[in-house]
């Protein structure tokens, strides 16, 4: 029984669920995938030959600050090579009352990381009785990305985008990561994934500081539209099947979803505008 062990060894008495897993059930951690030994890296040719074609990948996600906090959004499409894997994947995850993350990369490990990270934050909060600070959460996520480096050698890249509301500073914050776990704070907005660059260019053209909520949601949708138009991996708004991007707003009161009808009506409106332009 795990908790008998933990009662006898004081070194397990830490606030981190990830460390607890490593010490008691290492087979459940992402790093256990290769039994602790590093596998040979996958060559670029292997990647081109379609080694990764059978692995589900998710694509464009973005974060934008607005006057009350920060918005995070993502498209819904996941691909396996040239095949569409799913049209309705959820890439934006609430991680605790005042933070959320979105992911780009190999879907399986991405979702695993989001799940592990939310348990990590909840565990800390329950054990210590207080939530981690916004920067504390961002740093912890960086360490988890770093622990994932062996998988990157296998071509299983997991890159998160983290947003949170800093209750001390009274503002939203955006953090991006690289595969080595490097953490970089963005001042206004950021977008990652295969269509990330296209989305970012669109945001850059129209962004102003302290935009109201409604305008920020519209800007996020416009950016996701552009990404879907330019990048084959990113799914556009599916008017036919009524599948729309998912979004969350994070402000002083916490995380809330932007309701689907609201996104849907705004998508319809944008689609009409685009049709007129063409």
């Amino acid at each position, binding site marked *: *029984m*795990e*908790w*008998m062990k*933990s*009662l006898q060894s004081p070194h*397990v*008495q830490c606030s981190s*669920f990830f460390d*607890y*897993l490593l010490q*008691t*059930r290492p087979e*459940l951690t992402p790093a256990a995938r290769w039994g602790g030994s590093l596998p040979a890296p996958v060559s670029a040719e292997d990647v081109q030959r379609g080694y990764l074609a059978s692995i589900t990948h998710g694509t464009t996600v973005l974060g934008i600050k607005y006057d009350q906090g920060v918005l995070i959004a993502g498209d819904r499409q996941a691909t396996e090579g040239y095949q569409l894997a799913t049209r309705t994947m959820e890439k934006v995850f609430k991680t605790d009352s005042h933070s959320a993350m979105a992911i780009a990369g190999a879907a399986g490990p991405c979702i695993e990381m989001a*799940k*592990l990270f939310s*348990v990590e934050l*909840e*565990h800390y909060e*329950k*054990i210590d*009785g207080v939530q981690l600070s916004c920067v504390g959460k961002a740093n912890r996520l960086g360490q988890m990305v770093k622990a994932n480096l062996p998988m990157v050698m296998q071509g299983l890249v997991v890159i998160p985008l983290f947003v949170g509301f800093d209750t001390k500073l009274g503002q939203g914050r955006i953090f991006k990561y690289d595969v080595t776990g490097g953490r970089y704070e963005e001042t206004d907005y950021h977008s990652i994934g295969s269509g990330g660059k296209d989305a970012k260019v669109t945001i850059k053209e129209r962004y102003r500081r302290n935009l109201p909520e409604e305008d920020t949601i519209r800007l996020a949708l416009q950016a996701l539209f552009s990404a879907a138009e330019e990048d084959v991996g990113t799914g556009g708004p599916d008017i036919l099947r009524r599948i729309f991007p998912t979004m969350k707003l994070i402000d002083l009161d916490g995380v809330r979803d932007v309701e689907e009808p609201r996104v849907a009506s705004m998508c319809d409106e944008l689609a009409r505008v685009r049709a007129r332009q063409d």
Partner: protein
Amino acid sequence: MSMPYYVSPEQLMQDKAEYAKKGIAKGRSVIAMEYQDGVLFVADNPSTSLFKVSEIYDNIAFSGAGKYSEFEHLRKAGIQHADLKGFMYSREDVTARSLANGYSQTLGTIFSQEMKPFEVEILLAQVGEQPGENEFFRIVFDGTIFHERSFVAIGGRSEALLAALQQGAGDQLLDIKSALKHCVNALKTVSEQDVAPNGLEVALLDRLRPGRKFRRLSQDDFSSLLS
């Protein structure tokens, strides 16, 4: 050569039990009670940062009486167990029953194998989806486990408290205001001096909350409910 002197197992267990009971008798009390929308916890605790009641999982809360370091240890172990189980399987698979069994096993083993038993009494409550589906477990120092209904008290004067709670308890589930008053009155009855609001710790497992049901009530919150 010195002879190891013989102590009968009965004597040994009795001594240990007495020792543990003495420790618990010094501990301050905690009450858990059903109300219309969930479970209410009221603890006699003047500290505002060292809690006697805390969250274990979505719909499960923990409370301990006796030695702080020991029930704090058990609280952490419970959170680890619950989070691990929820991570491995699913959030709905974490139940108070399995946690209570774990605590019972742990306390039982410590009581029979260690020199010094834990001087603690533990209370686990799980809020159900419907009124009347709530569960309460009380686990004592030797691992004995009690499955309780409606209300339960642990700590130094738990028996007197239970008697006080029993008085005036109707068949109807109380609303939060009356339930809180009932608990505070019970605490007043068993303690000689008046119970000041700043000497209380109040928490809820609120069925109406989405996701994690546990919530602490600040002093202002419950003072306004009591007035």
